[in-house]
């Protein structure tokens, strides 16, 4: 995904208490935050709650941001923590699993079959929210591992092991699917 350029001057304006400037910041960053949160939480409503909490938190704590040019990484760190909180909240009050709505998908990849999606979805949901976060920041946002570690506030070694585990789990699900399904199955969903 392509990042939106956030002008540091706009961040500094918001740091001085300008609510309209922060509104612009939120609207520049919101879609990207929602995309990340959706992929970590696999639930649109929870993702919206996490993004809303993260943006409000960002407003409250904005003056503690030292480098205005680092607004987006800083915001993403808040967002990830908000995703962790939402995931815990969901575990508390509901065990129901809701799939991401297919009609909201930005685009469908022909490379994936229905079975691929099903297997990956199941395997992904078995990962911890911490493992999912590493996976999403690395594969979806496209960050190198050191940057993932920095954004999550963890050691690079921890990020590496989480990514390794998550990748292995997803690959294993695909391999299991390949062993049980005939190779001639229709590819596109």
């Amino acid at each position: 995904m392509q990042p939106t350029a956030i002008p540091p001057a706009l961040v500094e304006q918001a740091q001085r208490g300008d609510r309209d400037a922060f509104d612009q910041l939120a609207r520049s960053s919101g879609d990207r935050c929602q995309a990340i949160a959706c992929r970590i939480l696999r639930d649109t409503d929870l993702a919206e709650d996490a993004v809303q909490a993260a943006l409000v938190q960002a407003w409250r704590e904005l003056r503690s941001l030292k480098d205005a040019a680092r607004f987006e990484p800083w915001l993403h760190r808040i967002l990830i923590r908000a995703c962790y909180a939402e995931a815990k909240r969901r575990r508390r009050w509901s065990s129901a699993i809701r799939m991401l709505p297919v009609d909201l998908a930005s685009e469908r990849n022909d490379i994936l079959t229905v079975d691929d999606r099903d297997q990956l979805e199941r395997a992904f949901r078995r990962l911890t929210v911490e493992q999912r976060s590493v996976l999403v920041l690395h594969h979806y946002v496209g960050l190198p591992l050191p940057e993932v570690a920095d954004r999550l506030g963890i050691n690079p070694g921890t990020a590496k092991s989480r990514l390794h585990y998550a990748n292995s789990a997803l690959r294993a699900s695909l391999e299991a699917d390949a062993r049980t399904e005939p190779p001639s199955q229709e590819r596109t969903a």
Partner: protein
Amino acid sequence: MTTRDDRNPDQLIRAFLDEGPEDLRDQVYDEVRAEVDRTDQRTSFAPWGISLTRFAGLIAATAVVAVAVIVGLTFGGGGPFIGGDPSASPSLAPSAEPSVEPSAEPSVESSASPSIEPSAEPSTDQLPPFACGDSETIVEATYTDFAPVLLTDVRIAGHDGYDRVVFEYEGDLTPELRVTPDDGPYIQNPSGLPVDVNGDPVYLVNVTGASGYDTESGERTYTGSTDFEPGLDQVVQLIQQGDFEAVNNWYLGVNGSTCLRAFALTNPGRLVIDVQH
């Protein structure tokens, strides 16, 4: 023709993650804006967010603390301490100092982690006076690094004339403490979820420059309770409000008292809040 076995699993994982919503609904932006309009920004006190002037002030404060420690060691007899300065807030109306000697470190409620034996506490006449009313009680930080100091223990205990809350840190430095009356709403940070706090009044214990989580090692340094209900005369509840971005906040629910004092101790670094009976 490509078969399933020929496909790159990593490519499939990326394709899987590429699918999904990428737009935030306008209604959410509107709700954020409405919340922002109702919410004030928090003033930044941490060195990673402060102005140069403020940082210079912190360095100066650290120098003052160092001098105070040396003087205390030379002439005081007791352990060094850093007291909240009542003169920093002109509206403070200090009450009479308690006439009792502080007892040993609290033992009523303690976390699972073993406590380090602290150094001797200052005698009563070395402690700052209790300040009553709605004012903010402040203890300046003694840290000199940009990294947060790490919380290792939280203890609460009743003493003759006051209840005491102690936050203990790794090493000898202490973060900045602000204790402010808080009428609510009470929310967790950063989730924004509501939290119930028993007691009236309730204080926000804002500890800036501290964390119970070591981001270097990835380990929690504080593994004790985050919700104490010690059943003391004054301290009804102490519940963690948040531990995020080097700000370690707690809500302190009290049984009617508005008279507090706060100070720092060294060896190990500790922040102490006393609530007068």
